[in-house]
Every structure is written in structure tokens, then in C-alpha cells.
């Protein structure tokens, strides 16, 4: 009987640990670079009337860029995380104001939750990460891979790996000079 109880406990523990929700996003991204200097204070489908500030981790600062058939292809390395702070209003947040949610892209092509090589996540103020397995996010972000009306507008229709505002590492170095 005692042996059975121990086996059951081990099985239950195993089951519980197997069911633990994986965390994709770090709690602190304050040291990350902003992907763009563009002020995202205009309404946009998907984010509606909310001010947005996107950040990228160091892994994603230098995407691999290749050219095929005269088309540029961006490829962010696995482990790239882009976190977009979404604020309550369309105006710039007040000092100390917390975002109402974070929307994030995590490059993880092998992840079963990945769509287009990215895991699409919404993090609530309660720190709950909601993974979007539907095509809601990617449908819109797919437009980043062709000419669009935002940022540099991607006039050449480069494959931007679903990122509307690619971080330009070179230009930062130059700006530091």
C-alpha cells in the first residue's frame, strides 16, 4: 500500500511538472534596445487606439540578411524576442505609467506553438502569457513582408521576417559615433 502511494505521488508530481506553463518572456527587458525611433502613436488594426513601444533583445539585434532573386530576406536568429509595450491611450505614456499589456514575438521555429517561426504572445498585467495559436497576429504581421504603409514602408517588398520595424544595428553604431 505504501509502495503504491509513493508510485502514485511520483506519477502525480510528474504529471504536474509536465503541465507547468512554459514562460517565454523575461520579466526585465529594460536594458533592451527599442527597435525604432518612430513614435507609434497612430491607430492601427490589431492594436487599435493604443500607444506602442517595441523592444528587441540582443540576440535579435543582428538578423541574418540574404538575397535571393534580387529580394532581401531577413532571418532573425532563434531566441530573438521582440516585446511591444501597449499603453492605455494613444498618447505617449506618463512617466511611470505601466503598459496595459505586452505583445511579443519569440523566434522559436521548432516550438510547436510557432507560426511563421515565431511564437506570438500576449502578456497580461497579471503576468499571464497567452499564446496565440490562431492566425490573428501573423495575418497582420505577414503584411510586413511586402510593401506596407508603416515605417520605411518596405518599398522593395523585402522579406522582413514578419517584423514591421527592423532594428538597424549599423545605424545605432553610427549614431553613437
Amino acid at each position: 500500500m505504501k509502495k503504491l502511494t509513493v508510485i502514485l505521488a511520483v506519477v502525480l508530481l510528474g504529471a504536474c511538472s509536465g503541465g507547468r506553463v512554459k514562460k517565454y518572456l523575461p520579466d526585465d527587458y529594460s536594458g533592451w534596445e527599442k527597435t525604432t525611433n518612430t513614435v507609434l502613436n497612430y491607430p492601427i488594426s490589431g492594436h487599435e487606439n493604443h500607444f506602442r513601444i517595441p523592444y528587441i533583445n540582443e540576440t535579435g539585434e543582428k538578423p541574418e540578411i540574404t538575397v535571393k532573386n534580387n529580394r532581401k530576406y531577413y532571418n532573425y536568429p532563434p531566441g530573438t524576442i521582440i516585446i511591444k509595450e501597449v499603453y492605455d491611450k494613444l498618447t505617449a505614456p506618463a512617466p511611470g505609467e505601466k503598459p496595459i499589456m505586452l505583445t511579443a514575438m519569440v523566434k522559436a521555429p521548432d516550438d510547436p506553438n510557432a507560426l511563421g517561426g515565431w511564437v506570438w504572445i500576449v502578456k497580461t498585467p497579471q503576468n499571464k502569457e497567452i499564446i496565440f495559436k490562431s492566425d490573428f497576429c501573423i495575418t497582420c504581421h505577414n503584411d510586413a513582408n511586402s510593401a506596407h504603409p508603416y515605417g520605411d514602408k518596405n518599398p522593395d517588398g523585402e522579406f522582413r521576417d514578419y517584423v514591421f520595424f527592423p532594428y538597424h544595428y549599423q545605424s545605432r553604431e553610427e549614431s553613437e559615433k
Partner: protein
Amino acid sequence: MAAEKFTPITRKVNTIIVLTLIIGIGTIIGLSYWYISSTTNTLNNKSLNQEAEYLYQTIRTIMIPGQASLAQGYFENIASIGENKITIFRQTGKKAFSDNTTIESVNRRWGFEKFHPAANRQDDGEKPLDRYFSQALQPNPAGKPLSFRVIKNNRVYVDIYKMLENTIKCRPCHGELPTARGVAAIEKDITSQLSDQYRTLGFSIIIFVFVVLSLAVILSQFMKNAVIKPVKVIGDVCMEVTNGNFESKVAIKNRDEIGTLGQTVNKMVEGLHERFKLSKYVSSSTIDSLKTEKKGERLPLTILFSDIRSFTSYAENKQPEAVVESLNKILNFQSEIIHRNKGDIDKYVGDEVVAFFSNDNPELSACRSALQIQRELAGDSNTKYGNLQVGIGINQGEVILGMVGSERRADYTIIGDNVNTASRLCDVAKAGQIIIADSIYRKVKEQVATEGPYKVKVKGKNLFLRVHILKGLKGKAK
């Protein structure tokens, strides 16, 4: 403690069989139905989801800016194909292309009449289901569209609502917001499918009932023949044996445990029969002594001796078979009378019966037995007992009851002076007479009629013995 209610084993076995069948077959049918139903629903949903995805991708592809009429034509055409109903609802909940609101809005955005309002738009008033519609307009993290079942006009439908996003292609005409342009609704009528499922379920239940009943009858019949009937036969034989019929046999031909049990019972009955027959030749006290393994004990008993008078001369003139037959008849009826009065035959010594009584009132029992014996012989007008007569002597007192004899052959019998005295009184008694010792008389004088007292001199005693001749019973003792 209250006696437990008798429940026939047939009922128990049948109940177990029926319950087992109901649970077993019922579970299989239930699981099968659940599996079929679940698979059908899954296939329906999968098919509808796929259809929704096709529709969605088509909308995305053909919604070329400025070519809304192309999309409208497409929706009108596919709406009438197949059994599924496809409807596009605007974000406001109104059916798409039911009026010119969108065209007017687009024209306002462009600042000129980019599209001509259509003249033949009709609103049939169809609305989406509010609670699902508002849910469908929200971003849905799940990998599949919103699916639900709805009943309308006694028909059952599966509906799928999928949000139509306001993509970049839409935005030049329709603006940046809202995120959801509307909802694509696909509806499939599954009434006939459900009817088929219910029909299948009904058919399964009928088959189930039929199978359960048939199997229950077959199995219970089998159990009845293989187990219950033979057990009942064995029980009946045991009951017969209990009632003294040792001729009853278990006639079971089964070559199984029941058959073996029947054979064992038959052997047991044979053994009992042998012992029963043996008990005729052995006194009850001998049998008791075998049970208790007593070697000897001193007991107060009432002893009865009965001896046939003039038997030797009788035997000389008769054939041996006739002699034995008459003797056995006399000994037999005396034994029956003695047993009936709760006495015990100690032994037969030739034509003599030696009996003793140790019940509640042994003196009266012995007297009653003696009187009945004499009455039986006195009434022997048809010479049943060969006109033979007996003399009876009754005494009482302490005797030794014990196993007397050799290791190979022994009798559990009574010995002692009081036994000898009873024997002497028997010797004194004439044919048809009953001589009782004075000690007996003193115990039963209120209940018996006697003559005497008399003084008799018997062999082995120096003093006269005071005796009485028993004549009958009186008062309640009769």
C-alpha cells in the same frame, strides 16, 4: 437474531447474470455510441473549420482594393452551393452586401464616388447570434474558429464564426480601424445526422435488450441445468435421508464438480445407512459412549427385564425359521414400545430383552412400557406372536454403565446388583405378569394400580424382597 430471508440461488444467479450483461454490453454500446457521435462531431467541426479557412483565405485573396463587387459575386455564388450556408456579417452585425452602407462609407473616405451604390440590395434581416458574434469579433488565441451548436425551427445546426481581419489590403478603403471587419459564418444543418445517430442508438438499444434477454435466458437455463438443478437434487436426497429414507440416491451424470459432489453424497448416504442399520444392533448408550469415549460410569437407572415364558418348549415344536420369526416379532414390538417411552435397549439375551430408562420419569416410563407390552401380547388373538407371553421385572437403583468385554469384542452394558435384582424379579414374574420392586412402587404409587405387596425370595438374596404386581395405570398417567 432474526432469521435471514431465504433468497433462491436462481434469483441471485440470474440477477448477477443480467447485471453483468447490462453493465458489460451497455458499456460497450454506450462507448461505441459516444465514439461514433464524437467522431461525427469532430469530422463535422473539422470539415467546417476547413471550409471556414478556405473561405477566409479566398476573402483575403479576392478582396482586392476596389474590387468588392468581385467578392460579393463570389459570396452570392457559393452561398447557394452545397448544404452549408455561408454568410458574411459586418462588424456592426448587419449582413454584408445587404445595403449600400459600406459603399457610402468608402466613398466618404475617398472623398468622391469611387463606387456606385447598387440598386438591388436587399436585407433579409438575418442576424448573427449576439453572444457568439461579439466573442468572434475579439482576438481568439485558440487555433480554431469559434464553433457552437444552435437549434432553430426544430432543426439542429453547427455554426462556425471566424473573424475577418481588417488587413492592409482592406485599409485603403475601410480605414485602419476597427481590427475586425466582420465575421464569416458557416452553418451546417446536422439534423439528419443526429436523426441517424439517434436511430442507430435506438436500434442499438433494441439489439442490446434482445441480446441481454436472450443471453440471460440461455445462461440462466445453463446455470439451472448445470448447477442449480443438480444442487437441488442433492438437497432433496439430503432431506430424504434426514427423514430416514436411505434408499434415495443422487442421480447426477455430470462429469464435473457437481457430479463429484453427488457421488460423495451417495457414498455418505451409504455410510449413514450402514451406521443406521448398525444402530439396531447397538444400544444408544453404546453409540453415545463411542461419541464420548467414556469407559464407564455409575448411574441411577430403572431397569426392565422381559423374558418369554415357555419359549424353550415352544421352540422345540416349531421350525427354526418360524421360531426366529416369532422371536423377532416379539423382540421388535417390545423394542418399539421401549423406544417410544424413551427407554434404551441394552441388549437381547436369547429371548430376553434388557432395557433401561433414564429420562425425567424413568419409573413411570418403564411401567408404561411393561403394561403396553403385556397388553399387546394379551390382545394377540390371531397368534401373531405365536401365543407367546412374557414375564417382566422392573427394578431401579444405581448401576454401572460401561464397556465390558475384550478389545476385539465389547458391549457397553449395565452391570451391578440392581441389574441382577431386576433380572430375578423377571424370573419370578409369571406369564403376563409385571413384578416391580418396592422402590419403584414408592415412586409411582399415585399413578399405578398394583397388587401386593408381596414378599419374594430370589436367588442370590438372603432377605425377602418386597415387590408389587403392576396391574395398570391410573389417573392422569393413563
